[in-house]
């Protein structure tokens, strides 16, 4: 059944959108990431304008992260102090990001920059994950013990403005979580992603947070950053499609339930290898689209 999306100004099959939401929800349930990094390019592939795909993914992310963060909150796995510091950086980053995005729209380069950042980011991320999962897999076969290196002292312990984070049992400079928040906030605005896939490894390896505290804290602050991005995109660029976001969210909620059950049955490295392959396929498709000679060399845009 075709549904007219009022902001995207295209008619798309509502069933396809539900399935898409469910598929991304399923993956995020299986792998424990927000799924925004897959949702935005998939929306672009099915014909949603780039700018609307980015802004609407942020809106969908609000719902997805509320749902996920609540589950972690109930288990006491959210470091509020850390989340608030990252949030401060994140809000500044999202204001900056929406401004950058508006600038790109004005110069007609938004589509290119979004596709390019996705292809590069997903390509690098997919390769890293693939290498890591294959290594773990081989180590399991040899029967070596897996020893994650935790909390190494490095350059960031020399930074000023140190603060104690009780929940995470850390005493570090607030500049690091602030900077991390800013980076993720900017990404979130320009690319429509929550940034979980950058935030989570950085919180574990860079900040040295206990692994149990990471997903909840990350999701908790993503709620606010994605909410801020949604409002800013709506006001600044008018690109949030509420109808699209709600359809995706309904599908996503169902998919996430199924996904988390399915994910519990798989081994960690199998999961990560599968995710790596999906990520790489999306990256290659986006990269190919940019290099193949377009059907039309001229593109048109209506000025409001």
């Amino acid at each position, binding site marked *: 059944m*075709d*549904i*007219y999306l*009022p*902001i995207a100004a295209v008619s798309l099959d509502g069933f396809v959108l539900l399935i898409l939401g469910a598929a991304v929800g399923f993956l995020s349930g299986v792998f424990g990431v927000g799924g925004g990094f897959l949702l935005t390019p998939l929306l672009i592939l099915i014909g949603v304008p780039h700018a609307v795909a980015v802004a609407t993914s942020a*809106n*969908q*992310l*609000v*719902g*997805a*992260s*509320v*749902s*996920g963060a*609540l*589950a972690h909150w*109930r288990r006491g796995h959210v470091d509020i102090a850390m989340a608030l510091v990252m949030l401060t950086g994140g809000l500044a980053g999202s204001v900056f990001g929406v401004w950058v995005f508006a600038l790109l729209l004005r110069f*007609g*380069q938004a589509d*290119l920059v979004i596709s*390019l950042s996705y292809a590069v980011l997903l390509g690098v991320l997919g390769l890293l994950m693939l290498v890591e999962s294959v290594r773990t897999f081989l180590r399991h076969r040899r029967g070596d013990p897996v020893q994650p290196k935790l909390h190494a002292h490095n350059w960031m312990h020399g930074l000023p403005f140190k603060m104690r984070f009780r929940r995470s049992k850390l005493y570090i400079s607030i500049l690091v979580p602030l900077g991390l928040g800013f980076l993720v906030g900017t990404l979130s605005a320009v690319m429509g992603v929550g940034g979980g896939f950058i935030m989570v490894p950085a919180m574990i390896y860079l900040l040295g947070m206990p692994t149990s505290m990471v997903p909840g804290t990350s999701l908790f602050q993503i*709620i606010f950053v994605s*909410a801020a991005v*949604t*409002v*800013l*995109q*709506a*006001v600044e660029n*008018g690109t*949030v499609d*509420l*109808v699209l*976001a*709600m359809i995706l*969210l*309904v599908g996503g*909620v169902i998919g*996430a*339930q199924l996904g988390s059950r399915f994910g519990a049955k798989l081994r960690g490295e199998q999961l990560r290898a599968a995710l790596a392959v999906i990520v790489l396929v999306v990256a290659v498709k986006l990269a190919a689209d*940019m*290099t193949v*000679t*377009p059907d*039309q*060399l*001229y*593109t*048109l*845009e*209506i*000025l409001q």
Partner: protein
Amino acid sequence: MRARATKVRLLAPLVFLASLWPGYVQADQPLLADLSSHLIAITTGFTGASVVLFGATDGPGDVVIVVRGPERDMVVRHKSHFAGIWINTRQVTFSGVPSYYAVFSSKPLDDIVPQPVQSLHQIGLANLRLQPRSTSLDPSEVADFRNALIDDQRRLGVYDDEVGRINFLGDRLFRAQVDFPATVPTGTYFIEVLLIRDGNVVTGQTTPLVVSQVGVDAEVGEFAEHRALIYGLIAVASAAVTGYIASLPFRNA
């Protein structure tokens, strides 16, 4: 439901024409025309619509109709191959571009209207005046952008380069059917009816036609535009509530 609507639409011009027949077109009104409907309502399942234009002249002559959609500014961008990828490099902004354009004529255009008159009244896509805003590109390049714009709009079905037919009933009553595609832009259209005699435009009449979205979609779109902040807050709140409800079944897990 649809059958009845069609019947009413067909009937309206007939009633009008019947009242016209005894000789309502007087000497001081050489041309009289109207539409079967002045509103096209776009709903969720809209697949296009037709409007019938009908009218009468005070004697022999030819009729040309020019349909123009609401004007807006458009940017045309050109992609070039740069470092292995395709990137937008040059652009031209055109002002006052009609969002819909179609021409109808009772006889082949060139037989009844000489080129200068066609140009003056912007009859035909080739005579459509598209004003480029200040640009550093030379005129031949601007012409490429202009052609690209027209080609694109033709592909979308909103510009028609084929001249539509106007049927005469006798030598005074005429009728034409204007078909709008599902992608028809919204706004106020102007339908210009020109009476042609001996290669000159004797008189003209312009009739408005409103194309408008109706229903929930239209309200959402309008709200998002005029109350952007509230719309953004509602978008966030509804997503958050949906997320909260979704987490409830897992409370005890």
